[in-house]
Every structure is written in C-alpha cells, then in structure tokens.
C-alpha cells in the first residue's frame, strides 16, 4: 500500500530531512509515525502524498511510483489518499455541507449525487445534525470530523493524518481516534503522525514507526 525504499530527502537550505528510510505499510494496517519535532514525520507524509519527491530512493503508493508519477497525473495518486491535518484546512465562511460538496464536485461526483453523498459522509463522522453550520462556528473536534469526512470523500485506500489531534482536547482526541479505528476496520490503511507517546500507548495493537533526525529508528513490526 505504502512502501518507502531507501528514501532520502534533502532540502537545499535545511539539509537532510530524511536519510535512507525504508518502511512498508500494508493494506488495512494502522500505524503511528512518531518522533520529535523535526524528525521527518511531515516530510514522510508529504512524500507519501507526492507533494514532495525523494532526493534518492523510491516511494510507492497504491502501485504508483514516485519515479514515474508526473505533476500532471499526481491527482490519480491523491484520489486514493485522504489527508487530515492538525489545523483542519477547511474552507472558512462555508458550512460543513458546502465544504463537503466542494470536494465532491471538484473530484467529479455527479451533481445530483453531491448533497446526499455529503450528508452521508457527515453522518458517518457523527455530524449529520450540523451539516448546515458554518465550519468556523464548530468546535475543534467537530472541525476535525468535517476534515475527516472530507478525507473520506474519494473513498480512499489510505488515510494520512498529520498530528490530527494536536489542537484537540482529550475527549475530542479519543473521538477522532475511535473514528480512525472504525475507518481502519473497514479495510482502509491509516498512517497517523503524532509526537504524543501517551496517545500511542493507549493503542497497543497499532504498528509504530519512530523517526529520529530523519532516520527510521524503530518499527514495532518489522518484516
């Protein structure tokens, strides 16, 4: 599903963000990607999303290789990935339903099917009753749920979550994680970046990758 082979990423000014990282996340697996700030978590997520290309090595995502995917057809990879961020990145000034409808429309959902699909996705994350609320009037946990619903809009194979609970209180964090496990139970691979070790300890069944200064220093279930 996601396979990094000897991946290094060097930035002209910052130097190496990742060095010789190899990891393999299979279909239906749930994994945490942890490490201190600056350890390379976000770079790894961006490489998987193909927003960045490795300096050396190869990133394979659902059969697509970073060596062959061009900027022109990178959208094909992204339709297979849902992405959730710490800061939600919703469209302010629009309702939860409008945020969903926007994504469904731009990814080619038939016009008549957009509103029912948006409502179904919001209901799936427990926000069916708040579809008409402006996203900036929702709580942090609710906004993150809208973002998760948006990430599910394409019915992706993989869910990437970059510090998705960083701005949430404990209760909302638990709600988001429960949602991720539900999604994972349906067969979707989940890769969640977090620096919160206490949170990771609560889910001992999850696989854990740990990065330190750009190197993979721990894999809880190496092949």
């Amino acid at each position, binding site marked *: 599903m996601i396979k990094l082979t000897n991946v290094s990423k060097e930035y002209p000014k910052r130097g190496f963000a990742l060095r010789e990282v190899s990891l393999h996340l299979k279909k239906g697996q749930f994994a945490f990607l942890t490490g201190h700030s600056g350890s390379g978590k976000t770079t790894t997520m961006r490489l998987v999303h193909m927003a960045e290309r490795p300096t050396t090595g190869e990133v394979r995502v659902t059969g697509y290789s970073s060596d062959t995917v061009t900027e022109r057809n990178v*959208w094909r990879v992204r339709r297979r990935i849902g992405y959730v961020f710490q800061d939600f990145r919703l*469209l302010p000034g629009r309702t939860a339903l409008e945020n969903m409808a926007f994504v469904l429309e731009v990814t080619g959902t038939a016009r008549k099917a957009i509103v029912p699909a948006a409502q179904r996705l919001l209901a799936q994350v427990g926000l069916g009753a708040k579809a008409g609320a402006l996203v900036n009037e929702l709580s942090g946990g609710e906004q993150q749920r809208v973002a998760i619903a948006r990430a599910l809009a394409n019915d992706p194979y993989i869910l990437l979550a970059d510090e998705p609970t960083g701005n949430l209180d404990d209760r909302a964090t638990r709600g988001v994680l429960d949602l991720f496990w539900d999604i994972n139970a349906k067969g979707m691979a989940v890769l969640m970046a977090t620096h919160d070790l206490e949170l990771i300890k609560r889910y001992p069944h999850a696989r854990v990758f740990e990065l330190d200064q750009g190197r993979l220093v721990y894999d809880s279930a190496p092949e």
Partner: protein
Amino acid sequence: MHAIREAAAGFKRSPVLTGLSSAMVGLALYVVGLFGLATYNLQLALTSVEERVEVAVYLRDDARQSEIDLALTELAEIPEVRSVSFVSKRDALDRARADLPEFGELFADLEVNPLPQSLEIELRPGERNPDVVERVSEAAAAYPFVEDVRYGREWVDKLFALRRIGAATAGVLGSAFAMVAALIIGTALRIAVFARRDEIYVMRLVGAKASFIRRPFLLEGAMAGLLGGLLAWGLTYATYRGVYSFLFEVAWLPSGWIGLGVLVGVVFGAFSSALAIRRHLGEV
C-alpha cells in the same frame, strides 16, 4: 460547466475584490487608451501635414508641349509617384488671383503673365519622405527644359524629424505605459487568486486535476479583463467627448484599436491568472 459555475461563484462570493480587480484593470487600460487617443490624433495631424508634401517643377517658357507630355508620362511611371499634373501659365495666374485676392489690382494691370508653367508631382502615401522627394526632384530636374524644382527641403526634413521623434516617443512611452498596466493587472489578479488560495489548496489536496483547477480562474481573469477593458473604453470615450466638447476637435479611435484594447484586457487577464495560479498549484 464547472469552470463557468465556479467563475460566476467567485464573482458572487467576493464582489468587492472582483470589482476592484476589474477597476484596476480598467484604470490601467484607461491610461493606455488615453495614450492611444493622443498618439492617434498626433498621427492624423502629421499625416494631414504630410499630404501637402509635393514637388513643384517649374518649366521654361520655351518648353515644347511634346517634351512636357513625355516628362508627364515618364515621371508618372516612377513607382513612388501617385500623380503628375501640368499647370499652364494661365492656370498659375488664375490660382494666384484666387489665392491672393489682395493683389487683385496688380494682377489686373499685368501686360505679360510672369508666372511659369509647371508640373506638380504628388507622391504616394508612405513615400513622402526626404529620400524619395529628393530622388523624384532630381529626376525632374534632369529635363533640359526645367528651370527649377522646389519642394521645401528644410520643411520636409523637419516634418520627418518630427515624425521620427513622435514614433520613438510613442514607442518608448507606449511600452512603459503597457508595462505599468501589465504590472497593475498582474498584481490585481494575483491578489484575487491569492484570496482563494485555500480553495486551490483543498482542490489539489483531494486530487482535482490541475487543468480543472485552473479553468475557473482563467475564466475569472478573462472576465475581469473584459470588464476592465469595457470600463477603460467607457472612460476613454468620456474623456474624448469632454475634450471634443470643451477644448478642441479630436478624432475618436478606430474600432479596430478599441477591439484590440478589450482583447488585450481579456487575454492579459487570463494570462495573469494563469501565472498567479501556477505558483499556488505548486504548493501542494
């Protein structure tokens, strides 16, 4: 369809920003329009002066008609020459009487007509420059029965120096105005695209094709350019009417120039949006 809907929605969602972009495009093109109006009228004035450039060939009184007819034919065959006409001594006197009525008594008392017969050579438009005038004059002066050739050498030289200065000034100033307009339009549309960078980000995030993202913005840029172009047209026309009514007579721009101005607005609007969006497309 999505592109049209989104472009219209963009207009509706941020009418102030869209209005400001169109106004900035309009004002930038208005400056270019004013410059065009001034340049066009200057060109018309110079052309009307230029039309008066002709070569007068004064003939000796003893020139034979057959020789004059031959010269008429030969001079008319020079490619740059539009027409050659013969002015007899009598025609010259009639003209003098008509042109100078204050000397009416003097002309009436004349026993002998002192004015020479002549050939008047008119040149084709675009050929009335010092080189051609001099070449045609030399060809006319070569006939043995020609007394003198006049074309106001200094006057023609000055006229063409003025035209050269005018063309150079128009080129430099026009380019400067066009560049300033381009920068203003580019900045205005960049701001408009920047205001919607969140949408672009989300679209890239969820896997919308770049062409799909670009289209509504191109359309919006073109629409802002069209509105700006029409606004510039209106403002330039209002200025023209004001100058015409209250200051002096000026000519309105040819419709081709106006069409070109509006088209430039549309194309540049779309182009600026394309440039602005390229930057944001690369962010995800």
